[in-house]
């Protein structure tokens, strides 16, 4: 039962994304496309956080753990296998499996929401510490030296399936990234209209009532968390491809914070919000990075505090309410017609 306005909103967003996908290469050169791909990777990990938090009610402070795992998995696999097709798959599957294990540990232990945050934060710190200490020749998986705090350089990029020598050029890589982002967004949108998606949202609304109706919240949260982990892993793989490089900073607290800021600024409870939030913040960071007077951490910190105190629901819902109240004054809509936050 998707109200017509939801379907129209969905089509509008997909159309806009397709316009960007095919339009951007016309208006910007290779450098712009390369920049765009890191924005897309960030938008995807933001989408994973927005999905599990805004719709699943899971407060994970460590999505960067799956992001980093995806990146490292791709790096290790492609350095060992040559062709990038399987590594790409592993980059999604391994973080998802890890998320499933961690999720089982947390949700079947009935840990309260805030503690889920603490545990996920701790896991990402553990990964950071472990990967940071793997400098030195003895730390390698097959042909891939883990590099410790130096990271892993010269990671082979994605290639045309089956032909390891035909690496994707920046424009092709951009199309792949954008295509994947649209696909993930559409999949999540669809998922939310299924019974699974609707029950997930209901569990977020009132876990007790969902249990009283016979649903097992632990299983739903586990599945949502696993999906989020897989998507974050894919984003990590794209990120690694963007720079040809990965280091333990992907597991850092700063990275985790950024992902949460993307969602908060963009709008919790929407899918398009995190995407827009990620693009906006990444853009701001890249602009700040080019000048020395203001520190990036300081700006991010201030943004986070301001948003928590003043605009906790984020930009997209605020904008949407503004648009709705404008259109409602023109059409006579029955009082209280439901517009569920599902875009």
């Amino acid at each position, binding site marked *: 039962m998707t109200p017509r306005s939801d379907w129209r909103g969905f089509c509008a967003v997909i159309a806009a994304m397709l316009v960007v996908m095919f339009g951007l290469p016309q208006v910007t050169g290779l450098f712009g496309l390369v920049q765009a791909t890191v924005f897309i990777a960030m938008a995807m990990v933001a989408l994973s956080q927005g999905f599990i938090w805004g719709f699943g009610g899971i407060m994970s402070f460590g999505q960067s753990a799956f992001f980093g795992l995806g990146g490292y998995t791709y790096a290790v696999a492609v350095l060992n296998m040559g062709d990038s097709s399987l590594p790409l798959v592993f980059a999604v599957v391994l973080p998802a499996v890890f998320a499933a294990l961690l999720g089982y540990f947390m949700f079947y232990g009935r840990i309260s929401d805030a503690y889920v945050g603490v*545990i996920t934060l701790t896991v990402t710190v553990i990964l950071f510490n472990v990967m940071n200490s793997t400098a030195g020749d003895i730390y390698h998986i097959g042909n891939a030296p883990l590099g410790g705090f130096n990271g892993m350089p010269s990671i082979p990029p994605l290639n045309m399936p089956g032909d390891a020598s035909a690496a994707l050029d920046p424009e092709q890589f951009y199309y792949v990234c954008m295509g994947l982002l649209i696909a993930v967004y559409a999949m999540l949108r669809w998922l939310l209209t299924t019974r699974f998606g609707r029950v997930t949202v209901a569990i977020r609304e009132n876990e007790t009532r969902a249990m009283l109706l016979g649903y097992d919240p632990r299983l739903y949260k586990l599945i949502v968390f696993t999906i989020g982990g897989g998507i974050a892993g894919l984003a990590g793989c794209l990120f690694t491809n963007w720079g040809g490089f990965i280091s333990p900073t992907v597991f850092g607290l700063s990275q985790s914070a950024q992902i949460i800021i993307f969602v*908060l600024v963009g709008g919790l409870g929407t899918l398009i919000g995190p995407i827009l939030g990620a693009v906006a913040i990444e853009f701001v960071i890249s602009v700040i990075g080019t000048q020395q007077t203001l520190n990036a*951490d*300081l700006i991010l*910190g201030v943004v986070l505090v301001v948003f928590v105190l003043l605009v906790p629901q984020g930009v997209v819902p605020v904008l949407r309410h503004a648009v709705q109240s404008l259109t409602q004054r023109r059409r006579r809509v029955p009082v209280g017609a439901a517009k569920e936050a599902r875009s």
Partner: protein
Amino acid sequence: MALTALIGFNVLSSIAALILLSIGLGVIFGMMKIINLAHGEFLMLGAYATVLSTNAGLNLFVAMLVVAPVFVGLVGLIVERGIIRFLYGRMIDTMLATWGLSLGLVGIITTIFGTTVKGVAAPLGGFSIGPYQTSTYSLFMIAMAIIVVAGIWAMLRFTRFGLIVRATMQNPAMAAALGVSPPRIYMATFVLGAALTGLAGGVLVPVSGVSPTMGAAYIARAFITVIGGGAAMVTGSSLAATLFGFIDQVVTFKTTPVFGQVALLISAVIMIRVLPQGITGRFFRRSL
């Protein structure tokens, strides 16, 4: 024999460090159930205050025992009035806002002082346990940990303020009905917690490098010690610190410090799962 004594001594100093690191957080969490993610940065500010005043000529011990707590206590006051007090009861929002605060503090310090690591050499020299050399400063740290824990415990148990704090912790509405202002107690507790953290940051300066991002190294450990400890501010954090410090040192002795840290974190995660209310949620429930 001497080796056992050395390991034992190292375990004690590891526990002492954990206690010092976490007691400020424990006071704040125990009182207001607030998870202050800027805790690491409070440590960092205490460390910077200590290093800067020492470099300006002040005695090291005065710097770490007076300047650091006072300075960070003041910072805590500003933070409480400016941010925290609007977010009571909103645990996730407090976590987010304090995370933003932590980023902001790192940013400010980096802007002012740059990213180079400063330091102060450990004073007091060394002594030997059998054939092994160890640092006398560690003895000082152990002593400080004991003093701080005993001090907080005594304050809670014997002073009027401590009684008011305990009452407000258990039932703020009732305390208010008896004439206590819970917001003021929260403010005082937050300032106290911040000051203790500043003190810890100062005390830790000789054993750790001082840099804007040093807080990140401590935050996870402090958190899990507090959460693993449970609601009782003093007993909880102390018991958890003992357990984790022990695990850390034993694993470090067998492998490397990194694995020691990792073992600590993993055992904490397991413990939160097994005892979601922390150690003092199940044992020693009525302790302070």
